[in-house]
């Protein structure tokens, strides 16, 4: 009888511990998956955002280039007028 009771006691402690540890691992796994998913989605989003910003920068640079050309064309015209005068 004594051995039986000892066994029962041991199993109860270990059972609880194992249960706790199992839950912890499960929680950990869940956290890992969610974090992985979150990071992958964030990476994708950042990639997309970077593409968009790249496009915007390119367009902005183009605009600045045209603006520069415009300024210089105007300056050229003014210069021509000054030279004619």
């Amino acid at each position, binding site marked *: 009888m004594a051995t039986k009771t000892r066994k029962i006691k041991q199993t109860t402690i*270990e059972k609880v511990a194992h249960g706790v540890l199992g839950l912890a691992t499960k929680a*950990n796994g869940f956290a890992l998956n969610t974090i992985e998913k979150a990071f992958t989605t964030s990476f994708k989003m950042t990639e997309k955002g970077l593409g968009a910003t790249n496009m915007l920068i390119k367009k902005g640079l183009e605009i600045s280039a045209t603006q520069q050309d415009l300024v210089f064309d105007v300056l050229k015209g003014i210069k021509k007028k000054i030279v004619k005068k």
Partner: protein
Amino acid sequence: MTTKTKNTTKKSSTLNSSLLNVTAAAIKTTVENGEKWQDLTKKLIKKSEPVRKMQMNMVFNTATAVKNQVNLGKERMVDLVGYDNAVVGKVVKLAKENPVGKKVIHFAGGIIEKVSENPVIKKVERTSGDLKKMGIVKFNEVKEDVLGQAQKILNKGEELIEDAKAPKKTTKQIKTKGAAKVTQVRKTTKAKATTAKKKTASKVAIVKATAQTAVKSIKTDAADKIANIKETGKKNVAVIKKETKKEIETSAKDDLKIIHGIGPKLEMIFNKNNINTFAELAKADKTKIETILEEAGPMFKNINTSDWQKQAEVGAEEGVEALVKWVARYRTA
């Protein structure tokens, strides 16, 4: 009391062991979970690589575009104002004061700062520095090796020069070397000579044996041949003797009929009495001739034999032709 204490100690020990087991399991699970987190971080870093690449490309593309634009603006400005430095400076000032220009310059400066602060570029700078250091270290190693080799070559050359300068030593060395070589050569020659002697002795023995057998065979052949030759020689000698006898007999006989007064019958009588040649007739006495004639018969009694011996002398001394001439002259006279 004792039983109670025993029970409590037992309980505490079992509890302790179970707690130990539980803590070990907890540590194990935490370690495993930590490993999982590490794996996840690795994965995420790998996943973030394209994003970082894209960011880098974007930065550099914008920087190059700004640079090109600035260069173009500069060129156009130079075109507009000419190559006067003062005017260019004024224009640059104007451009700088221009809000667009200000923005551009500010943006370019920001890009330069960002680029210089970028960890990837810093890492590249560091790796390039490391590579430079490694290259220098390697170069120094190679240099040391080459210098060591050159030093060795120089030492060898100096040794050779010293050897050349000291002829006595070299001669001694040469002598010792020569003596060693001579001893070696002597040994080899002795060995060769012994082997050659052995070979020649064996060859000589073989040759002797063959020569002996050959001599034996030759001797036997020669003896047979000599025997044959002797036999044939004897036969030949006998034949030759017979022939010579016949020839002597025939040659010894002169034609006595040539002498005037001697006919075939008288010749026969002289031949019977052993007078066959002119010389024999000349040597014979007159009395002998007379007795032969008397014995031959009464027919030959009164024959004149006075000139026969003279004629025979002529025939014996001067030959048959002289005798024939003499007889012809004697008849005509």
